[in-house]
């Protein structure tokens, strides 16, 4: 097959995929007339899986979030002590600058805001409902400290395992990556045990 034919074929297939996705989203819009409520988990999963195909095709990137936090931390650290940050192995291999993942996650916040705002689910709160129901409304400091420590554990673990619930849990598992299947199983086993110390 000639190069030009190959190119046309690729374009055709891309168009087909695009039409398919548009059609299915129209169908789903009809199913889900109640925009305010949560969508079915199967439908949401279907769309996230499709989104992964699109990021791989159009950006040559898997969906991944956790490295964003390391990039942001590095950007802040660079302001304090550039020579020290840029000497660290991690930042030598992953320069702390605006990159694909960084823009992706900032937009995730915006996308969620728009979904919540127009779905009338946007409301400002400092304590999760379940937490205040269980531990009282004055327990915000305790939640803050535990969530902060949780964040430390999580980003350390994500960097060591080289991915998170998105990067390993969806993108890596879909590619049948052994690292991802091991990691995601460990995320949930450990999470299910650790939650028993809180609730």
């Amino acid at each position, binding site marked *: 097959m000639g190069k030009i034919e190959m190119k046309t074929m690729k374009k055709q297939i891309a168009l087909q995929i695009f039409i398919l996705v548009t059609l299915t989203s129209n169908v789903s819009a009809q199913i889900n007339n109640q925009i305010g409520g949560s969508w079915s988990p199967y439908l949401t999963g279907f769309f*996230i899986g499709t*989104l992964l*195909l699109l990021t791989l095709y159009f950006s040559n990137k898997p969906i991944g979030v956790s490295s964003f936090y390391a990039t942001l*931390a590095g950007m802040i650290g660079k302001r304090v002590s550039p020579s020290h940050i840029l000497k660290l192995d991690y930042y030598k291999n992953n320069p702390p600058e605006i990159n694909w993942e960084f823009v992706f996650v900032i937009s*995730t916040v915006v*996308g969620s805001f728009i979904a919540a705002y127009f779905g009338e689910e946007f409301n400002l709160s400092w304590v999760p409902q379940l937490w205040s129901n269980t531990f009282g409304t004055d327990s915000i400091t305790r939640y803050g400290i535990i969530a902060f420590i*949780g964040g430390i554990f*999580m980003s350390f*673990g994500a960097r*060591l395992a080289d991915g998170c619930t998105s990067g390993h849990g969806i993108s890596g598992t879909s590619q049948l990556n052994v690292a991802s299947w091991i990691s995601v199983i460990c995320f949930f086993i450990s999470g299910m045990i650790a939650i028993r110390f809180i609730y």
Partner: protein
Amino acid sequence: MINQKESKSSKLMKASIFGFIFGFLLQKGGVAKYEVIVGQLLLQDFTVAKIIMSAILVGMIGIYFLQRFHLIELQLKPTHIAANIIGGLVFGIGFAFSGYCPGTGAAALGQGNLNAIFYILGMLVGSIIFAELSKKLNNSVNKWGDKGILSLNEFFKIRKGTMILVMIVLLTSILGLLN
């Protein structure tokens, strides 16, 4: 679409569109809620498992065909057994303590859950701690059980198509049970 010449702004523009959709979906799926994540870990609410498994089904089948037609390249991370297990277990503690994960925490902030700020600050501190130790970790934990790029079908020594069929049966059975 494997195109090396693309400009940086065009790449970032695509990232912003995809990120937007991702955040929109996380919010609509309900997984930006603290209660839904904690409910999953307590085995009371299976929204997270249902979303992840449906996404894997679609992603896995789609990736298999797109790759067969040479439309995408796989983006695989190397398997370091010790680092994956230890990192995974440490991650899980954070999962339970905060009630968020990196993607859903960002989405939680978007829907107005300001409590996610505590978690995000922790994420920044943890990242720096990891970076400080990255040299030591690269020379120790990362070398234990270093298998390089390894896929499930290579591990079980079966054909990729067969592996995918096995996974489809497995995932749909679990989804069926959860339903």
